[in-house]
């Protein structure tokens, strides 16, 4: 049992001050903008909840939100099972383990705009490795600046390349923590591979998979830099995800009110979905 000790607040205080400084003051600024209209020159007019109403009814917002959910959904459907499959087939001990882990973590350590730039030059139709291979060796017409489908396939592939390793590392960490005795018991009982997976490996990986799904949800839902550098939201608006649209409104058009209202709705959706995932995945533990 943990001891009750209100002095523990003193230990938390520095964290509280730093995070509050960074989180609360900007958040208040956003709330402040979201209820006002400005025509520049620091003139502000009370707008009430007008921006929120307009935004919730605007097709532009619905489209961006729809694209965002499609993107995040595809990312989770592909990366989570793929990550588990790779973790299951990795060696458990020996020389190759650190080699695998280090090379797999490599994409995660590259600055996000470099990731975007790198995939851009990788997919250029005439001079990129992938672009050239698709167009000139396979003869498939592939140009993501022209074709929305190609653009979508490219940003999904890029994200799978970039972040599947996070799922692999987490799932692998869960797998190596299973004691050998569990596998021996399963062998004696004559359990099939599927049974071992379903009744030993999945339950033991549950905690780390919860973290993996939550992190992948939050980060893919907030993604900005990589698709912005890779496609710029195009062709047309086909890959304009929520963040890209938000930055366009806030910094491109300098419409602070609508951008602030959008920020708050965006943040609220992220919080709500994260909370739903969290409660769904941990509800068995509570019962």
């Amino acid at each position, binding site marked *: 049992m943990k001891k009750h000790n209100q002095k523990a607040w003193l230990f938390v205080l*520095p964290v509280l001050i730093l995070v509050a400084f960074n989180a609360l*003051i900007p958040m208040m600024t956003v709330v402040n903008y979201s209820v006002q209209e400005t025509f520049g020159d620091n003139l502000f007019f009370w707008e009430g909840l007008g921006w929120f109403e307009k935004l919730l009814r605007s097709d532009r917002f619905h489209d961006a939100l729809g694209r965002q959910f499609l993107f995040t959904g595809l990312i989770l459907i592909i990366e989570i099972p793929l990550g588990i499959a*790779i973790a299951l087939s990795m060696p458990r001990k020996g020389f190759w383990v650190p080699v695998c882990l280090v090379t797999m973590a490599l994409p995660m*350590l590259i600055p*996000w705009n*470099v990731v975007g730039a*790198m995939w851009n030059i990788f997919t250029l139709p*005439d001079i990129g*490795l992938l672009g050239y291979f698709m167009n000139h060796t396979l003869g498939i017409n592939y140009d993501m600046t022209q074709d929305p489908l190609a653009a979508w396939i490219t940003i999904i592939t890029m994200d799978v390349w970039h972040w599947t390793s996070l799922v692999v590392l987490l799932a692998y960490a869960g797998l190596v923590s299973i004691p050998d005795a569990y596998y021996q018991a399963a062998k004696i009982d004559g359990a099939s591979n599927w049974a071992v997976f379903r009744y030993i490996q999945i339950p033991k990986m549950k905690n780390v998979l919860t973290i993996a799904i939550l992190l992948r949800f939050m980060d893919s839902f907030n993604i900005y830099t990589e698709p912005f550098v890779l496609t710029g939201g195009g062709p047309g608006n086909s890959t304009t995800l929520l963040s890209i649209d938000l930055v366009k409104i806030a*910094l491109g058009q300098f419409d602070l009110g609508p951008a602030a209202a959008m920020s708050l709705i965006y943040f609220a959706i992220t919080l709500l979905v994260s909370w739903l995932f969290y409660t769904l995945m941990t509800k068995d533990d509570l019962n």
Partner: protein
Amino acid sequence: MQKRHIVPIVYILFLLLPIYWLVAMSFKTTNEILSGFSLFPQTFTLENYAVIFTDPSWYWGYINSILYVSINTVISIAVALPAAYAFSRYRFLGDKTLFFWLLTNRMAPAAVFALPFFQLYSAVGLFDTHWAVALAHCLFNIPLAVWILEGFMGGVPKELDETAFVDGYSFPRFFISIFIPTIKAGVGVAAFFCFMFSWVELLLAKTLTAVAAKPIAATMTKTASSAGYELGLLAAAGTLTIIPGAIVIYFVRNYIAKGFAMGRV
């Protein structure tokens, strides 16, 4: 070799292909890149790297990035250590709420905060300093560091603390000379993740700097647009951004997998 090992091998090849292409391009001249497709550099050149290492506007980008990333990692770990200890050892009013609130800051889209951050740090006079970026990145790195460290501390039996206090250790002395060395693997993992997320982030780093503290990632975007497309140079600069991360990950390779596995949730 077993049949199932094909899966990780194919996956690693898939990961290395775009990286290979970036590195290969960095050894080509921009002319060769634009003139057509070649799998290997035809005229191998170190010219691109020479430009970066001799032009201050390029190499200062790296120094700036490394500076603010280091400051951020030190601050994050320094304040997260006592907080994680409090969460792992004591119950106090509002502890669970506070922990969840900390984690919610990991969920805030950076795009939401870009403009308010610019105004906040301009107002306090830190705009275009390394401190501005280092402090701003605390928003998502401190919660992560607390989360990871709390997991590691939970694995240390409370008897360790009690024995030390019975032996007459003061709290600060116990914390620094006994407790921190016990969880040094956790400190390594937390530092690695702070380093990583601060190193790869661009939106806030770019918003909060202009000239004096401009990160390498922002240097790259500007050069690419002003001088047309200097692809060879861009590729060399990109290749160099992979190296610091690769060095750090090599040192913590045995701990990273453990880091999250021991974490809570």
